[in-house]
């Protein structure tokens, strides 16, 4: 893939001078960057650089003390993780965070939960939600109507379940995990678990997909598969992807734009080629000889 050929849309997420402190420890200091639509965006850095904290900030898990986040053109207020999910941000975890008691299919179907509003709630959102007073009065009734349909698994609800099953099956087909559809995810090997986790995130049809070390602990073949999926997701669905990865080969190959963090500060930013040649980045990864050390030895 030649980077010059790729075109990106507008800015999807803009992070401005974010500072995140835990007590006296500064996890992130004054970091700014922009993720543009349809981009594959990589955040790299040595261990403890604040990469995962950055994703947690974007997710709404952590609330930065300073700085602003602009998402889809609107400055974002302090939000909870589930609210971030409602705005179209999906995420996978460094250590697999699947629902271990459920099958692959159920895990992917759980990813569809936000899309599955019942018929009464859909009516509410289309017709009633904007009316003053009436919206508060009708909300419980509408919610309860859906709840009853759900508990009877009947009529409109069953249709909905089938429609979303179809969407889930498309994700399953895309990731080629048809054969493990009914297997409890706890029994799957690590590589497949990572893939199911990606499937669960994809089922949300996100606008921004955050991948926290998607290739960690994989062998070469699994890594290549996963790279292919990441590129395909970006290509076919036009999903913007922000990923953290330690495998430099992968990062340099698939990403369009790289941000390098070290000790919570941004030390470099640019296309993979630019970052690769940056002396600060090389120093951060390989260490740098300090002058006083040189004098002593």
């Amino acid at each position, binding site marked *: 893939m030649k980077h010059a050929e790729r075109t990106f849309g507008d800015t999807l997420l803009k992070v401005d001078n974010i500072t995140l402190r835990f007590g006296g420890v500064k996890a992130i200091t004054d970091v700014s960057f922009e993720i543009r639509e349809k981009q594959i965006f990589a955040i790299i850095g040595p261990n403890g650089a604040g990469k995962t904290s950055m994703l947690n900030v974007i*997710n709404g*898990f952590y609330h930065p003390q300073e700085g602003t986040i602009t998402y889809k053109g609107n400055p974002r207020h302090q939000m*909870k*993780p*589930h609210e*971030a*999910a*409602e705005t179209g941000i*999906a*995420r996978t*975890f460094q250590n697999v*965070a*699947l*629902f*271990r*008691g*459920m099958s692959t299919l*159920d895990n992917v*179907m*759980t*990813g569809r*939960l*936000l899309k*599955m509003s019942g018929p009464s709630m859909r009516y509410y959102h289309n017709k009633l939600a904007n009316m003053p007073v009436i919206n508060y009065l009708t909300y419980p009734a509408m919610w309860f109507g859906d*709840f009853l349909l*759900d*508990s*009877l*698994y009947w009529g409109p*609800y*069953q249709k909905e*379940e*089938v429609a979303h*099953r*179809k969407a889930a*099956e498309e994700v399953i087909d895309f990731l080629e995990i048809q054969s493990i559809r009914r297997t409890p995810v706890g029994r799957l090997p690590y590589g497949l678990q990572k893939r199911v986790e990606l499937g*669960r995130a994809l089922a*949300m049809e996100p606008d921004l997909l955050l991948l926290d070390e998607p290739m960690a602990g994989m062998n070469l073949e699994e890594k290549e598969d996963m790279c292919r999926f990441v590129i395909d997701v970006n290509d076919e669905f036009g999903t913007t992807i922000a990923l953290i990865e330690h495998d430099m080969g992968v990062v340099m190959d698939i990403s369009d734009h790289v941000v390098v963090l070290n000790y919570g500060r941004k030390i470099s930013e640019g296309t993979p080629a630019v970052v690769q040649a940056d002396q600060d980045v090389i120093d951060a990864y390989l260490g740098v000889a300090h002058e006083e050390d040189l004098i002593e030895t």
Partner: protein
Amino acid sequence: MFYREAGQFYTSYAKDQGIFQLRQDKYGLWGILFIAFIVVPVGLYLLVQGGLMAASTKDYLYNSIFLLLLVNSMAALGLNILTGYCGQISLGTAAFMGVGAFTAFKFSTGLNYRIQHEDDAGELVSQLVPLLPAIDNPILLVLIAGFVTAIVGVIFGLPSLRIKGFYLAVATLAAQFFLVWCFSRVEWLYDYVSSSTIQIPPLKLFGLVVTGSETVMRDGQAVTIYPAAETKYLICLSLVVFFAFIAKNMVRGRIGRAWMAIRDMDIAAQLIGIRPLATKLLAFAVSSFFCGMAGAMSLIFYLGALEGAEAFNINESFSVLFMVIIGGLGSITGSFLGAAFITLIPIFLVVSLPWLGGQFGIPVDAAVVEHFQFMIFGALIIIFLIMEPLGLARLWQIGKERLRQWPFPY
């Protein structure tokens, strides 16, 4: 070889999403329902008519075993939704059952409250005034009890957002003690009787006497009609079967997926857009709804009259928790298996120990039976949990997998 999916293909997602993956399971369930609804009542009736069984034995079977089993199954279903599916440990089950029982009682007597005034002689006169017309439909009472308990459950479920695991168990223990205290101290709940006992008034369903007795004139003579054990049994059975179906539907649909997501990995669940508080509270509400119905059924059908602090003490909470753990957390079938295990094994031991002693010429009196019952029962629980920590439902699952191949080695 007979118990496998060979030749069963599903061509639509709707069919593939059905409750049963195997046709054999479906027929099995219909078979069980057929036995419970038709074979048992008709069979027992014929046995009594044919003189093969005493009428009192039949009534004992219904009133002391089947009804208790059904009430416990309903309670276990409720707790399994909360603990097994949503992962929130609760030790307040009995208290929630109690709320159901007292709600049923209050609504069956018209929500009485007391007004007191001094009469001309200066003596205090008390009078009970009903707020609402008394409800005499047992099913309606059970449903109302469920709704009221759901509200109480939501209130006591509020700490679950901040507290997890064992700490939540302790918080629900507070519900247990507080509510049981209310059952013996808040006079309004038991209509101000000095013994703090509640007794269900006569109820009828479709003209059939369900509780109490009714005296009618027949051929110029007063005849007292007592409730038939079959009536109670069939009403309870219908309620349990219907709500087990509802529970199954919930846990296999989006509600159940949200619960299980919270149970398995609450951080990931939030990132998918599941609201933790709303989801947990819904689990508390539904669970309490079931427990409340179980309590109301216990009062209306099983006991008839009870003392709240006695009938719904902490032992009952633990007993339901054991049912769920032994039956299998996160399994509807498991709730029934667990309820059957905990309910039937003690009864079985009570019946079989004296007989066993008789075989060896050892006299076994009631006290010995009671001690042995606890010992054997405790040992059985430990053995089961070591053999299969995931409960009877898992054993059943393993059995089914074996049956797939039987009688061939593979």
